[in-house]
């Protein structure tokens, strides 16, 4: 290919023209190179600054569990980064409106005051105002200078602050808009893509804070509420009750605690299952709630006598209401009555209607109270008092109830000391065969072991003075076990001595030991009896365990099993205090007893023909069922004689022999000479 020479200018002017074009091209090339470099520098700079901003916002979001705390910092960061005059935020509430968070940032508060005032504490319904438009459309909105003057509801305030552009952005959690951010600038907003990128990422971080806040609120709610009924639980109740107590005036009046227990709930649970029980609890909670609402509804808003109520479920079937700022104490009683009425209507469980009653204890705060816990304990006590009546109802705590409790608690504490320091001792009351013929005289057949408390200050204390407290405090189990072992030990020693002196096994006295219901119904009771028999070596057939009807009422099946078991080892069983209480004949029929003990009250009133008839009926019954009978509380010779005539085999009482200490009581067994020798 032939090379053509490159054409060159022939004259100077043409050369200059060419050189000028050359320079011009060089200039254009340089400008383009500069523009390219500048664009790169700008983008690098902007992305660095944006990354730093987002890093700060992310740090803030990570630090904060509280939206109201984070939002102020995020608004500040964005405004400073964008050089915007004012930023504020609106939370989207359950009503679907955007409500000002009262969080805002401006670097010039004085200058922006009109706009801050026009925006704070504002609520925008969907579609209204810029926040409302963002809320409705769920996408960012921009308002430029031209639109601002005509179509912006806060335009007067905006104009007075020199605002030229506004933008609003949604903060989203999934598809839900939870917040609207709004920014005002005194210059036009130019690079909308960059703004959108930055603010959207900031919004994502804010959404994380709201999500965490919600998760925490849900946890707190769950931690403070009963999952089944949705009512406050014990923790929240305690918190509110304590706060209410702290707020009390010096007189400490104005607070009441109602402790409410459902009567008959256990039976429903047992009969229909726990699901039914749950339905009852939920319905009960609902009715309580509406009763309280109705009681409070009577008062006007702003009434200076406004009172508050917190209803809580604190246990299985136990509810508590704390009434706060009560203008008069009668409200608590009225409310209790309304609650009882509300549960008179049966509750539908599946296809069945069931009924539950209420036992309500009320305690009112007063000067003596040092804590709300004391108040709660007193309300508890009043509730138990209501429940102990058997028919539910309302009992308000009183000083008398309180004294009773204080005394019992003091006694319980002393009893604990007594158990630890072994202050108990056993007395033995002889039991005699009354003899078929008057002239035969009474023959000693056994002893009833009777506990005495050898109190360091008060001396010997009778069981009637402390056994009820021991039973209430659960101490009876320890005391009863001690009695069982002590009595068997003593009797084993006596038997050994008597046998050594040549007494035949048939003549040895038996020991009758009282067993409290709590002790008897312990799952380990029969095993414990077995162990005591083995360890002491007392002949089982010379041990009689006395129980009252109480055990059978609490748990008939368990009672029968224990009785059968101990009888299988040869131990005798005795039904104590017969004739009082329920005296159900079915117990006699179903439970394996060897002996009936006629209650002392019938013996004491033997002059009354009615009592004599009852005694005769008991004797007939026992005879037919092949049970031996012991009459208790024989105090006169006449009573003894009458009982003998009526065919009562055995008896005990002051007339025959008082309870004595071990040495004195056992001396009665010895033949005259030996007794003297002892």
């Amino acid at each position: 290919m032939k090379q053509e020479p490159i054409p060159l200018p022939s004259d100077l002017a043409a050369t200059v023209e060419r050189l000028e074009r050359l320079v011009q091209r060089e200039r254009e090339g340089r400008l383009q190179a500069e523009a390219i470099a500048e664009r790169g520098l700008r983008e690098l700079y902007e992305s660095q600054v944006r990354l730093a901003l987002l890093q700060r916002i992310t740090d803030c979001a990570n630090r904060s569990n509280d939206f109201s705390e984070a939002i102020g910092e995020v608004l500040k960061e964005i405004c400073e980064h964008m050089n915007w005059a004012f930023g504020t935020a609106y939370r989207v509430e359950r009503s679907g409106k955007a409500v000002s968070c009262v969080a805002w940032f401006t670097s010039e508060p004085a200058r922006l005051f009109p706009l801050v005032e026009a925006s704070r504490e504002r609520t925008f319904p969907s579609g209204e105002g810029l926040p409302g438009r963002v809320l409705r459309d769920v996408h960012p909105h921009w308002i430029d200078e031209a639109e601002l003057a005509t179509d912006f509801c806060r335009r007067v305030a905006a104009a007075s602050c020199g605002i030229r552009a506004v933008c609003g952005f949604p903060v989203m959690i999934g598809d839900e808009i939870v917040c609207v951010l709004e920014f005002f600038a005194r210059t036009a907003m130019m690079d909308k893509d960059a703004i959108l990128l930055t603010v959207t990422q900031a919004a994502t971080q804010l959404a994380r804070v709201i999500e965490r806040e919600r998760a925490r609120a849900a946890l707190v709610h769950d931690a403070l509420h009963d999952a089944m009924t949705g009512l406050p639980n014990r923790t929240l109740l305690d918190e509110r009750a304590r706060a209410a107590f702290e707020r009390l005036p010096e007189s400490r009046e104005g607070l009441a605690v109602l402790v409410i227990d459902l009567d008959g709930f256990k039976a429903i649970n047992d009969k229909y299952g726990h699901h039914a029980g749950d339905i009852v609890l939920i319905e009960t909670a609902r009715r309580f709630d509406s009763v309280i609402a109705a009681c409070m509804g009577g008062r006007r808003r702003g009434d200076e006598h406004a009172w508050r109520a917190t209803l809580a479920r604190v246990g299985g079937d136990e509810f508590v209401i704390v009434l706060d700022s009560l203008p008069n104490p009668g409200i608590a009683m009225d409310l209790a009555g309304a609650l009882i009425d509300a549960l008179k209507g049966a509750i539908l469980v599946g296809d069945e209607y069931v009924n539950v009653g209420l036992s309500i204890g009320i305690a009112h705060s007063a000067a003596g109270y040092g804590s709300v816990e004391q108040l709660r304990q007193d309300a508890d006590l009043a509730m138990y008092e209501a429940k102990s009546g058997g028919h539910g109802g309302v009992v308000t705590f009183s000083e008398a109830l309180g004294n009773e409790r204080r005394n019992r608690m003091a006694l319980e504490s002393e009893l604990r000391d007594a158990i630890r320091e072994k202050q108990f001792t056993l007395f033995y009351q002889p039991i005699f065969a009354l003899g078929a013929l008057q002239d035969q005289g009474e023959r000693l057949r056994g002893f009833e072991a009777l506990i005495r408390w050898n109190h360091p200050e008060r001396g010997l204390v009778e069981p009637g003075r402390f056994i009820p407290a021991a039973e209430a405090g659960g101490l009876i189990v320890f005391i009863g076990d001690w009695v069982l072992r002590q009595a068997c030990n003593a009797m084993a020693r006596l038997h050994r001595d008597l046998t050594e002196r040549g007494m035949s096994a048939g003549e040895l006295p038996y020991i009758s030991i009282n067993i409290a219901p709590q002790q008897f119904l312990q799952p380990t009771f029969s095993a414990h009896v077995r162990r005591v028999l083995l360890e002491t070596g007392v002949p089982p057939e010379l041990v009689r365990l006395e129980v009252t009807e109480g055990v059978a009422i609490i748990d008939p099946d368990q009672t029968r099993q224990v009785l059968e078991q101990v009888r299988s080892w040869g131990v005798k069983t005795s039904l104590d205090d017969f004739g009082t209480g329920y005296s159900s004949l079915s117990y006699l029929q179903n439970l394996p007893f060897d002996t009936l003990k006629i209650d002392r009250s019938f013996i004491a009133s033997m002059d009354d023909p009615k009592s004599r008839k009852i005694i005769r009926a008991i004797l007939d019954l026992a005879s037919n069922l092949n049970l031996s009978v012991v009459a208790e509380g024989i105090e006169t010779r006449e009573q003894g004689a009458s009982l003998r005539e009526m065919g009562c085999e055995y008896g005990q009482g002051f007339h025959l022999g008082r309870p004595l200490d071990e040495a004195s009581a056992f001396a009665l067994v010895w033949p005259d000479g030996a007794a003297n020798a002892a």
Partner: protein
Amino acid sequence: MKGVVFNLLEDAVVREHGLLAWDGLLEMAGLEGAYTSLGSYPDSEVIRLVDAASAALGLSAGEVLRWFGRSAIPLLRERYEMFFTSHQSAQSFVASINDIIHPEVRKLYAGAGCPHFHFHDLDDGRIGLAYQSPRRMCRLAHGFIEGAADHYGDQVEIEHLSCMLDGHPVCRIALDWSR
């Protein structure tokens, strides 16, 4: 001084006086004259170029700077269109100089020392512009404002209330946009 100022001056001179005039000016000032917008150059070089132009055109240095400022606006518009399109008026454009343009300049040229213009309301309704710079280029600012007014088709009356060139501690310019 950022290289872009030299480039603008070159463009303004070339546009008005031709390509060779710039070379002449450089020769008079005794400068090499290879400037790129990405670089920074001693302030003294600008002053020497202005002085050379002043001598060549028989104008005061202030007059040269004012001419340069006014001529530079259309050139800036070519290079940085986005700074202009977002404003509806020269007043708005001028007011944005501290808040928008300077930060933007700093984005491109790390360490660029931009003058700060303090705007304030004067009692007579005019806008006050206070300016303090060791470079004492208030006349350049004057020209920029006139150029902005030209661009947006606005009228502005500019009065120098005080000037560092006259020994005042600060340059104060009054702008009247109401005409």
